């Protein structure tokens, strides 16, 4: 999510300034990471307002724990791992209302000019179904796609071996495929073919 070396250097500089007592330097960190953190939180709850609240809470925790970052991993890895912990614990305290995966029905076939709108709605149902997966499968799916299908980045964020993550992804995919038996792929996405695990 952040392979930009300039961004990484800016993160380091801002962290050093914050730790030296310059609180305003944290603004640079928030400015750079607000988009990714809100989008990550969105994938956890699919509620825009809640996603911003969760991202804000993650930034506050990062501010409080900045001195604990040991620089063994990149700042982004540390921030995403911290954010994942915050989102998980906050959503455990105040869960979003999710249907069990068994209760999610596949939308009907679209017809006529409504095809595009219905397709969009259908896609959203599939994405929402991820939130109905058990937590052990849900988080690998959320983070794998958030990290643009980078298994090692998702595994680092979750603090689990890549093999475990791959196994859980595979199980999650089969659960979703069972739930949506009528989904068909019109054109195989060549872009993702090489990256799939």
């Amino acid at each position: 999510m952040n392979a930009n070396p300039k961004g990484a250097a800016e993160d380091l500089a801002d962290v050093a300034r914050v730790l030296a007592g310059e609180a305003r330097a944290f603004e640079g960190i928030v400015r750079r990471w607000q988009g990714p953190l809100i989008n990550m939180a969105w994938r956890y709850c699919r509620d825009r307002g809640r996603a911003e609240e969760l991202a804000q809470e993650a930034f506050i925790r990062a501010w409080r724990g900045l001195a604990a970052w040991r620089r063994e991993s990149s700042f982004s890895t540390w921030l995403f791992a911290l954010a994942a912990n915050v989102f998980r614990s906050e959503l455990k305290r105040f869960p979003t209302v999710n249907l069990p995966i068994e209760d999610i029905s596949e939308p009907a076939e679209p017809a006529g000019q409504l095809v595009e709108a219905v397709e969009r709605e259908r896609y959203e149902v599939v994405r929402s179904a991820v939130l109905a997966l058990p937590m052990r499968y849900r988080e690998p799916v959320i983070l794998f796609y958030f990290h643009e299908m980078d298994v090692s980045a998702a595994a680092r964020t979750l603090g689990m071996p890549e093999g475990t993550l791959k196994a859980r992804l595979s199980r999650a995919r089969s659960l979703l495929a069972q739930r949506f038996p009528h989904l068909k792929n019109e054109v195989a996405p060549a872009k993702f073919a090489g990256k799939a695990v």
Partner: protein
Amino acid sequence: MTSEPETTNDAQSRSEKIEKILAREEELIPSSGFLASVMERIEDEVVAPPPIPFPWKRAVPGMTLAACVFGWGAVELVRIGVPAATRFSLPAIHVTAAFTRPVEQAGWVALALGVSLISWLVSKRMAGRSGLL
């Protein structure tokens, strides 16, 4: 003969479709006030007084004393309780004696209830006068 390969193809097609849907997520743009609200909270944290440290100097003597008392109690319990437990036997209950004075016992119960009632009424009246109720 042809149903098996079709099923496999369908499953693969479904998986690819799901992969495609999940990979294509629209990106949210942070709301205009998000950065300001985070920095506002950070500034609140900066000016907030530091948390009050736990008063270890005052607590340690009390905690030590409590630990000593509990430790001594446990030692005494074992010292006295274990020999007593070996000699313990259940007393024989005389059922006939238990039913001989029921009226007398009922009187004591009634008296206790009466005292409780009076106590409750007096306290309620006093609380009412002082404006608490």
